[in-house]
């Protein structure tokens, strides 16, 4: 380990980054803007879990990161197919 636990501090910074990105859910005019936050979750949570797994010496968190990456991809594809695959509705 280093002088101080760099990985823990940086993973907390990344968690703050996700929380700030949640503002886009409140203000995005279209549904796709809200869906972008799921992409943000997918990439950033992989980095958070890898850093935490390095900081706490638990390699099992790498498998959790794999699951998160796959879930983000499936969420985006399901959004495009099921929500926006139907006929366009009026903007509410």
């Amino acid at each position, binding site marked *: 380990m*280093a002088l101080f636990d*760099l*990985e823990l501090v*940086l993973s907390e*910074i*990344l968690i703050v*980054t*996700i929380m*700030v*990105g949640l*503002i*886009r859910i409140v203000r995005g005019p*279209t549904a*796709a*803007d809200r*869906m*972008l*936050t799921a*992409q*943000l979750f*997918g*990439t*950033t949570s*992989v*980095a958070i879990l*890898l*850093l935490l797994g*390095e900081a706490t010496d638990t*390699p099992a968190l*790498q498998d959790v*990161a*794999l699951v998160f*990456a*796959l879930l*983000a*991809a499936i969420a*985006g*594809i399901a*959004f*495009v197919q099921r929500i*926006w*695959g139907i006929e*366009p509705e009026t903007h509410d």
Partner: protein
Amino acid sequence: MTSLMSLSHWLGATFILSGVLFFVVGTIGLLRFPDIYSRLHALTKADNLGLGLVIAGLVLQAETLTGALKLILIWLLVIASSATTSFLIARAALNRGIQPRSKP
């Protein structure tokens, strides 16, 4: 040997720190950019570059070769899924008639 270990450790810490900076920049772009296409561009590019830098730093600090290979495979999976998803979202937005923002 110990100097080589220390060098790779600090180089890895530098890579991880710069990757986290890219994540912060990607979130700022997600909040500040005007339309869906530029937001997609900012988010996917900056975040995948940040994840690549974080994983490069972790590979430099990895103990075993298999752990490093697993990290690289995770990065390749995230890149492929993120590129596919962002392309699908942008194409669906165009099909629904959301126009890219023109010059004011």
